[in-house]
């Protein structure tokens, strides 16, 4: 409870939380708040600038941009949340196991993590999506695989330091099972950096998703997605700049929101740990 209050007092946290809440709200409520059908083509209203009927204008198929942005929010949120949730669970488990068990298991796992890090992120995502075909599920998989090493590394650090604490040795001497030690003593210390990492991974996930759909390797048309909207708008950029600007601003605000939230959480959570 105290954490929440402190987060709200922190400028970064407040701004980030506001943007993230807005993003989630738009994504969840998109079927209710979309003024038009995002797939409906209005042939008599092609490439219209923002006006009373179409608040953010229309694209080159006469589709309402605002409604497409709302549905795009839903798609990108779903992809990013699922990917990062999966990655954080798997990665944390990997990091904690690796740190706790130590020895060759730790060595091997960390070498694997290093190799996974050696791949530039987007390239890895490209190969995975190219391998399995462009679709929502494969983008989720691609983002997830990219994020797992980050969580593994983040979880390993605190695990190693807690493992060395005297009270852990004491508990082990009394006969506590490793599972209990991990759940009761290691995980609580790992949670704070992992939570911060989750928000940063969500920001990166939105970026990767947008980049993949920009390259045509994300959700396929006609389902709207912010990245592909930017790509489609390229050819009409000079005389219809609103088609490019609105999805770009959406992407930027979503990424910014998660980044600020992560910063705020880091400020709020970490100094407390140091005490």
């Amino acid at each position, binding site marked *: 409870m105290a954490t929440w209050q402190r987060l709200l007092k922190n400028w970064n946290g407040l701004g980030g939380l506001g943007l993230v809440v807005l993003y989630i709200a738009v994504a969840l409520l998109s079927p209710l708040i979309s003024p038009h059908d995002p797939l409906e083509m209005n042939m008599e209203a092609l490439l219209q600038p923002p006006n009373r009927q179409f608040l953010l204008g229309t694209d080159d198929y006469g589709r309402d941009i605002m409604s497409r942005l709302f549905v795009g929010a839903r798609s990108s949120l779903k992809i990013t949340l699922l990917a990062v949730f999966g990655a954080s669970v798997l990665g944390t488990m990997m990091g904690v196991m690796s740190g706790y068990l130590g020895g060759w298991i730790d060595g091997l796992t960390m070498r694997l993590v*290093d*190799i996974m*890090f*050696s*791949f*530039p*992120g*987007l*390239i890895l995502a*490209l*190969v*995975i999506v*190219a*391998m*399995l*075909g462009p679709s929502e599920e494969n983008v989720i998989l691609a983002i997830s695989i990219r994020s797992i090493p980050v969580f593994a590394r983040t979880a390993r650090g605190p695990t190693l330091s807690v493992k060395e604490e005297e009270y852990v040795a004491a508990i082990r001497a009394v006969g506590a099972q490793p599972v209990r030690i991990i759940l009761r003593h290691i995980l609580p210390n790992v949670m704070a950096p992992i939570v911060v990492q989750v928000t940063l991974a969500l*920001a990166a996930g939105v*970026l990767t998703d*947008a*980049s993949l759909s*920009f*390259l045509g390797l994300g959700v396929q048309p006609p389902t709207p997605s912010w*990245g592909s909207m*930017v790509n489609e708008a*390229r050819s009409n*950029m*000079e005389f219809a*700049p609103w088609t*490019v*600007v609105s999805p*770009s601003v959406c*992407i*930027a*605000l979503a*990424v*910014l929101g998660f*980044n*600020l939230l992560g910063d705020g959480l880091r400020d709020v959570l970490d100094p407390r740990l140091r005490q």
Partner: protein
Amino acid sequence: MSRYLIRRLLWLLVTLWALSFLVFVSVRLIPGDTIDLILGTSSILAEEQEAALRAYYGLDKPILQQYVVWFNSVLHGDMGLSIRTGRPVMSEVLERFPLTVELAVVTLAIALPVGISLGIASALKPNGLVDVLARLFSLAGMALPNFVVAILTILILSVVFHWFPASGFVPFSEDPVQNLRQMFFPAVALGMSMAAGVARMTRSSMLEVLRQDYVRTARSKGLKEDAVIVRHCLKNALIPVITLVGIRFGRLLGGTVIIEQIYALPGVGRLALYAIYQRDYAMVQSSILFIALCYVLMNLISDLAYAFVDPRIRYT
């Protein structure tokens, strides 16, 4: 120091080998191989002819055997033929790699000075005008994807200044000035997020260094502020920045794929992208391996620079 270097080089080789294996296997797991893609859905060739074609390219053998054959030829300098163009893959990659390397170098040459100067200026007057602007720039740089920056730049230039990107790429050897002009905006788009991250890290690192006792000593000795900053603060403040650049370089390389596509620059990134679209295995492998090699080398360089700058690392 040399033991550290040798260990890192060995690790580099291991990493490259593992990457080559991963890329090789994953590319071959793509459903539908190159032959399928070339032939399409039409059945121009009879079954036996298709099978013969596959056998000719060695595509019918088990994956591990294909890998051993491929690895063997790589050790002899032959990275295979592009199944699409029939040309050696090595020559296609080598033709394009100077451009990608030049793009990366120009990007760093713009992003690093901008980021570091902004970070230092921010740290010297916290919460001043420069600091606020720099922090806004950092936020924007981190939030905007590189393709958005690229497109918005093209949009602003073409609509406001009526300047259109030149068509046709001019190599550096032909006309350096024109070449650098063409590189400028792609480098800005690619480097903005690097500059933003560097500015942020430099700022927090400088702030921490400025708090140190030795800085107070230097000032009380009567040293001019410039000398204090350059001689005592900068080297220490830049240590975490070096590590950050090494890590972020990967994102930069991944970004070349998109930026080269947008600005129609014939580099390795674009080559890799089209190779993926076209299922050209040999090309995908080599171009991705090349990009990964650049990243791993850059990490090695930044690790060595880090070890060089921070004496504490050198002797462990």
